[in-house]
């Protein structure tokens, strides 16, 4: 059972690693954010699998923390940091759709 759970954790980590190609390719920052979000969920799943497999206590609490703060990256993305004075028209949408190159 332990081997299976560890294997599943490695598999999920591997798939979300593939998803990281989205971080490299973009094209927009929103797509990069999506890849980070998928990595977040996959990371939580792998964490829970690891925790049950290795019997480390309190791992589900770490997962709870990660799930609690999972939305923060996207919240920061959407609020765009609140540009202080200049060019606020390009704020969220500009950050969201600007091409990297």
């Amino acid at each position, binding site marked *: 059972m332990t081997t299976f759970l560890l294997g599943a954790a490695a598999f999920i980590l591997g798939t979300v690693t593939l998803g990281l190609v989205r971080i490299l390719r973009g094209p927009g920052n929103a797509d990069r954010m999506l890849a*980070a979000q998928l990595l977040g969920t996959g990371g939580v799943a792998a964490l829970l699998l690891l925790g049950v497999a290795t019997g480390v206590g309190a791992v589900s609490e770490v997962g709870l923390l990660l799930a609690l*703060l999972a939305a923060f990256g996207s919240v920061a993305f959407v609020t765009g940091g609140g540009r*202080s004075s200049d060019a606020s028209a390009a704020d969220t949408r500009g950050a969201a759709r600007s091409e990297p190159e």
Partner: protein
Amino acid sequence: MTSALVVDAALVLLVLGLALWITAARAAYGAAVGFVAYGLLLTLVWVRLAAVDVAMTEAALGSGLTGLLLLGAAARLAPYEADEHRRRPGTVLRVLVGVLCAAIAAGLAAVVLLLPDPAPSQALAVAAHLPATGLGNPVTGVLMAYRAVDTLLESVVLVPALIGVWSLSTEMGWGGRPGFLTPCRSGSALPLLARVLPPFGILVGIHLVWAGADDPGGKFQGAAVLAAMWILVMVAGLREPPPVSDRLMRFLLVVGPLCFIGIGAAGIRLAGAFLAYPEAYAKPLILAIEAGLTISVTAVLGLLLAGPPVPEPQYQRQSRRRS
């Protein structure tokens, strides 16, 4: 345990790949997104290293709050990024620096491979003396008893850090509200999240502080979660950040360190040394310090992210534009 090794190798590859991306990406925003994912993976690494306390700190601070900070900064700095690429050093210099950095990394790797076996450790000494503090979590024991001076200095140093951030305000801005976290523009989903999530988050945060005496967790982890919830409420526009001249808030910022110093000074009389606890009251005193520190660290972390104060007219303008 070879299957565990496969997981570890996958994790290491992921971490290194992301670190490479953070270093090499062209745009700072993409690198900051990578850093959010990187913090999350480090949490997994800490769990694999059997350091659940550290994993919790990394999850709350490293991936949650630092991500918010860096993404916000990257969005603000994007207009100034264009001329950076011109200033990149030449190829020869980069190769030279690369070789030097590789040499340093190789030296560190050699140190890792040559670490003495069996490893020197203070784990047994901590385990032997832990019952005297009444605590069950050795990490909390180290933080609050054996290396209490470290923890005291750390909680004190957070306050000058906040003063440093505040002092970057303009002259007109002093005394106003912090200006980094102007409420977001989108009308629907974020305020809902900021209403539903904080009750759970506050519960988890207080649970972490309380359970930290015996199980993994503690004041820093709990305070980071509480600060994150506060920031969420401010970003969603449900509450404004307090003006930096607010006296109650200033008191909350220092109540933890004051409590720590006060109890520590009382230790000179009662237990014979600064920061020593009389054995019969060790646990209640530690809990009192932890409660005070939780309040202060929460306030400091939240306000560090909220940035320097801006003049009231500018704050109102930003809020209106966003809502």
